[in-house]
């Protein structure tokens, strides 16, 4: 029964090819626009996410507090209130995965006949875990490096290329300032950061070596910044609260009204807001595209109404020989759904092709999610049902005698 009606619907579509294709075009454009817009929005969201993730997710940055003398406040990290013991205490907290002190300075590196200015980071053995930044070649920094303040250096891929070109840098000597270091490893490539900086143009040395040879700090054992990575799946706010509590106790800040002498920020909050912005953009783009989808639906309704009027006599014949109202309703609904779903599927292809074109010629990342495909298909089916119902209901409600008299 349904198969026979389906074939009839196909024939009805074929009988008016131009009209059917134009009606379908409305759906093609609508669905295509939704797919394309969602793909662009989702692509943007993924790019933002990737960039934030490149910094390492679920990371806290703990900065030494600013000092406040006579109302003049310096920036954070200016007062050396954090110690390596603080770092060890934080590491012992439940919910904390890894901790590393971090110092950095822009320094001149010399190797053979070449020299290169790059950012040198001093960090602990937890660095690669905290930043999700493993060594690609050579060995990882270990506790012994930090303990003995070994003169080992790990190079980012860009810094390595600048200093050694095509040569193998492992085991070679790099002079930083006046101190010679031996290249112990090459960090894996991380690409650009969110602000467009090349993250691979960098070098890493043990934190202890950094303070002893490169910084000459008067505050040995004190740090300006700690990076803390929480364990997977723990509540970030909870960990932050524990850390605050711990540091206040260690720093003997008893007055509950007193300011912290440290500052904790959380990258996941940055990521959340960036993702929320991208999500809002996806929604906005989707909403704009949905308008064209609605217009496509109205087009279907319009044509179905014309078709019902044109085929009044046919409806009369069908009713006279025994079609029930629901048979007529089903037949016209099937036609509307067939037009909308075929248009939707074509639109899906067009949207995908459009997304591919955008990603290729505008260098924007696009991402078509299975969700957006399923959504478009479901929506086009829904549009066929919704906009096809009224014309079909009108067809089914005809009086057979009047319909048969219709010329």
């Amino acid at each position, binding site marked *: 029964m349904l198969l026979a009606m389906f074939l009839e619907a196909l024939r*009805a579509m074929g009988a008016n090819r131009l009209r059917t294709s134009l009606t379908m075009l409305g759906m093609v454009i609508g669905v295509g626009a939704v797919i394309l817009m969602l793909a662009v929005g989702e692509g943007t969201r993924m790019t933002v996410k990737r960039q934030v993730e490149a910094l390492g997710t679920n990371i806290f940055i703990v900065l030494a507090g600013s000092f406040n003398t006579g109302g003049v406040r310096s920036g954070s990290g200016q007062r050396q209130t954090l110690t390596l013991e603080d770092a060890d205490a934080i590491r012992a907290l439940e919910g904390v995965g890894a901790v590393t002190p971090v110092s950095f300075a822009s320094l001149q590196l010399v190797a053979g006949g070449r020299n290169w200015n790059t950012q040198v980071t001093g960090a602990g053995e937890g660095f690669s875990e905290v930043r999700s930044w493993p060594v690609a070649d050579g060995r990882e920094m270990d506790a012994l490096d930090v303990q003995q303040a070994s003169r080992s250096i790990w190079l980012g891929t860009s810094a390595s290329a600048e200093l050694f070109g095509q040569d193998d840098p492992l085991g070679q000597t790099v002079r930083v300032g006046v101190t010679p270091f031996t290249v112990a490893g090459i960090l894996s490539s991380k690409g650009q950061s969110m602000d467009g900086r090349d993250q691979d143009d960098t070098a890493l040395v043990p934190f202890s070596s950094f303070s002893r040879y490169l910084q000459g700090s008067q505050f040995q054992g004190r740090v300006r910044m700690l990076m803390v990575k929480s364990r997977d799946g723990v509540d970030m706010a909870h960990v932050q609260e524990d850390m605050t509590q711990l540091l206040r106790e260690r720093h003997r800040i008893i007055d509950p009204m007193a300011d912290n002498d440290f500052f904790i920020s959380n990258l996941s909050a940055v990521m959340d807001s960036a993702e929320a912005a991208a999500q809002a953009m996806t929604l906005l783009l989707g909403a704009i595209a949905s308008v064209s989808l609605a217009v496509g639906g109205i087009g279907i309704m319009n044509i179905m109404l014309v078709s019902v009027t044109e085929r009044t006599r046919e409806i009369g014949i069908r009713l006279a020989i025994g*079609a029930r109202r629901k048979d007529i309703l089903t037949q016209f609904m099937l036609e509307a759904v067939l037009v909308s779903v075929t248009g939707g599927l074509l639109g899906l292809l067009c949207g995908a092709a459009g997304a591919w074109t955008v990603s290729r010629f505008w260098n924007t990342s696009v991402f078509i999610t299975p969700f957006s495909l399923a959504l478009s298909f479901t929506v086009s089916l829904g549009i066929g049902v919704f906009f096809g119902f009224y014309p079909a209901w009108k067809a089914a409600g005809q009086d057979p005698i009047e319909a048969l008299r219709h010329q």
Partner: protein
Amino acid sequence: MGRLLVETQALRKSYLTGAGALEVLHGVDFSLEEGEFAAVMGPSGSGKSTFMNILGCLDTATSGVYRLLGDPVSDLGPDELAVRRNRFLGFVFQGYNLLPKSDLLENVALPLLYARVPSHERRRRAMEQLAKVGLADFAHRLPGQVSGGQQQRAAVARALVGRPSLILADEPTGNLDSQTSDEIMGLFIGLNGEGSSIILVTHEPDVAACAKRLVRFLDGRLVEDSAVAERRTLPPATDPAANPAGG
């Protein structure tokens, strides 16, 4: 005689118009038994079309009783009427009323679609009926590709395919020349000979003379109901082989 197919008592029908209620049937008592062949005549506006529409379950009476196969249908809803049209009645119209974009086979099979008959069975039975009216070779032609007489024969095949209890023909020869008219009437006589019950509306005395019984309407009343005195005999339908029981 056979069982009672159709029975009406005090059948009235009025329409609401701007000038008030317009009564087109003023109480019609009529009955028809199985195997009868009645011709309904009367001038335009006599109420015969309205009467036929009610008999055909396309319309319902304002008051009075109509029993189809002993079953009152006056108070039925549109879908219940549709089921009765499909199961018990076969229609032949003046303008053939075939679906122009479906071939003859599909047209003939259409009532079976609404009777929920499976696809292969629909085709088999439609083909059988087409062969019976001599159109086996035209099964895959569109209505526009065959003559008016052939279209009307296909319409008769469509009316017969559901094995209805009663065939209602509304001016079936109105659009045909006299020779083709005779062909179609030959077909009806043949069908009646095989036992089909037929009610036929016509303006033409020649056509009415093919029936066994004549019913005449005037001003919404049944004014004459008599046996046809001199019944016309016609040769059977054009293809005797296709209509072995032809009259």
